[in-house]
């Protein structure tokens, strides 16, 4: 079942081109023939043909929960998608240490934290701490890294100060809570701070978290972004490469 990837990509239910899509949502109406019609109409507005309302239940007084199936006419032109992904070669633990030792001749200093009121440390710990993530050891485990983990709830000014004091090559920021895009505000604020302090060009800024992708990180003024499932070795390779240069690039495993 290896479709030669079509240029125009549409949804697949059980036969080529059926465009089958499932939706669920709540509308502020109690269940009724009219509400069912509204749900149908609502689905049609999204581009679903022959929408089938398979569930209509009162989720709360005056609110109905719906499940709808329909045939979507929409297709995506794969050729027109601009995707930006972090690209690195993946060297083994030893290769990487060797290469850094040879080309840089000193340890790479990184400072990491989960900033703002965000108390989620598991992500940044996974990247920095020896233990690592899913069997992939963290930066602490590399002889070529000097990793400082400031933990969570670290305010930007404090992070910036510590990083400068430690002469950090890179700052690793984790953002997990995203309500009302507080993660973006937080991240932007750090970049602005460092810019105004005038050392943005002397440090690599990495952003990570379950809702982060490379594209977003770039938009926010970081050098790279890492999302769910990131392996510490990916981060290690990226940093080493940025600092000692390495051209032949392959793409990361999809995240």
């Amino acid at each position, binding site marked *: *079942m290896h479709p030669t990837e079509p240029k125009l990509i549409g949804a697949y239910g059980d036969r080529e081109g059926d465009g089958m899509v499932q939706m669920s949502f709540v509308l502020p109406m109690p269940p009724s023939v009219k509400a069912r019609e509204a749900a149908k109409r609502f689905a049609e507005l999204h581009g679903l043909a022959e929408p089938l309302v398979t*569930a209509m239940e009162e989720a709360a007084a005056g609110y109905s929960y719906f499940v709808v199936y329909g045939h979507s006419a929409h297709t995506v032109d794969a050729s027109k998608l601009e995707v930006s992904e972090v690209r690195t070669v993946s060297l083994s633990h030893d290769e990487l240490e060797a290469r850094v030792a040879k080309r840089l001749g000193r340890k790479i200093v990184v400072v990491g934290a989960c900033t703002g009121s965000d108390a989620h440390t598991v992500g940044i710990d996974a990247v920095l701490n020896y233990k690592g993530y899913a069997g992939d050891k963290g930066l602490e485990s590399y002889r070529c890294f000097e990793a400082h983990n400031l933990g969570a709830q670290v305010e930007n000014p404090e992070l910036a100060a510590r990083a400068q004091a430690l002469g950090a090559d890179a700052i690793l920021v984790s953002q997990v809570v995203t309500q009302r895009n507080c993660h973006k505000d937080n991240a932007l604020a750090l970049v602005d701070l460092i810019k105004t302090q005038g050392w943005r060009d002397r440090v690599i800024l990495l952003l990570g978290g379950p809702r982060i992708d490379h594209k977003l990180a770039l938009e926010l003024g970081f050098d790279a972004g890492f999302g769910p499932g990131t392996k510490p070795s990916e981060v290690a390779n990226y940093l080493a490469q940025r600092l000692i240069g390495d051209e032949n690039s392959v793409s990361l495993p999809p995240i």
Partner: protein
Amino acid sequence: ADEVQRFIDTHTTVGVERTTARAYGVDGVDDQGTPLANLLVDRYHQAGLTCRGIAFFLGRALLGGAGSINEAAERLAYGPELDHGSTGKTREETRAALERATGDALDRIDLARKAREEKRARFPPGAAPLKYVIVATGNIYDDATQAKAAAFAGADIVAVIRATAQSLLDFVPHGPTTEGYGGTFATQENFRIVRRAIDEASEAYGRYVYQTNYSSGLCMSEIAWMAAVERLDMLLNDAMYGILFRDINMCRTFVDQYVSRRIIARSGIIINTGEDNYLTTADAVEKAHTVLASQFINEAFAKRAGLGDELLGLGHAYEINPRIEDSFLLEIAQAQLIRQIFDRHPIKWMPPTKHKSGDIFQSHVHDAMFNLVGIATGQSIELLGMFSEAIHNPLLMDRYLSLKSASYIFSTARHLGDEIEWKRGGIVEARARQVLGEALFLLEEVERETIWEAIAKGAFADVKRTRHGGKGYAGVVEKAPDYLNPFLDALERGEG
């Protein structure tokens, strides 16, 4: 069942004769798409000669100079006049003339069986419960794609559901098909196409993947033969289903079932029976015992057709109204009971369907409970529930998520069954005893009244059918004293 078996032994059907013809090598269709096997048998049936067995006439044609079975069949089907078989070669000479053909017919089945066994040795099947999923696009090529996708996602068994009307057709369509409602036609070519796809999957994932289809309806025995030679692994095969849910005449389908099971036994195919379906029309709490009773009856028929326990996938289901308090316990009782009674059988367990609604999220949870009972009670074959059961035939995504959920539950609760001891005199034990008791009582009743009567009274699935009613009765014939069918004789003697 003996009473019925006596009837079976003294009768044949157009289906059985077509099967015999095909086994001997009759193949192909005319320009109308009508199979030669049908043209041949129908002609002799109209002439009232089926009672002597189509083999008798094929043999005579061979003796009469036909170069091959197919040529013999063509002569008989299209030839200017009919062979009334009254004069000339005797029954014994004819039998002799068919000897080689009979041997070839058996070899073909045996070779397929051997090939299957070799593959299974090379690619060990998955752990029980085997995960059984359905594909039903209507287009055999899409089906093949879906079948591989299912295997990729972890399926152990793939069934291609038949087009809804096929069981009422009195012939088997020919060649690959790409149009069908509710499913895809069962044809010999379609069997091959899917077999090929599934074999590739077995290779790719190093796990044996089973292929199954439906040997039911008016062409029950012909399909059984096609499945045997095309190396299918399982067949839904149950006269009761056809009688109750397809209104097929019981005399006809009992005879067809017997012959189909003789072939199935020879080729080592696992059958799945359809008692689970009863609970879709009858209440699963009140009528639970009818499932068990019917399984005993089905087993009795199977034994008389030479099927061993290891090939008997008796069907039962998780169809109790989920709104009933402690329904989970009642389901456990039923599942555990069947498991213990048929402890050497590859029993087949069916998911909730009747009480499924269009709320796919809740439906997914309902299936999760079913999966948990499946692993906890050690079911052999489990047809996975689909969260879209109340909506459509499963989409690729539905099947993927169903397999993902089942795999998770089978693993997270792998040894749950070994851990639990059910409280003496508790709800579960009491329920099991009750169902067993009711089943035995019903069986005694059936014994007294004969199966014909029991069915007529609606003992199963709350559906009533009469002995001579239903579709296909016209195709049933009493065998003449000199009825000839060396192929069937060989199967019965288990020789070769």
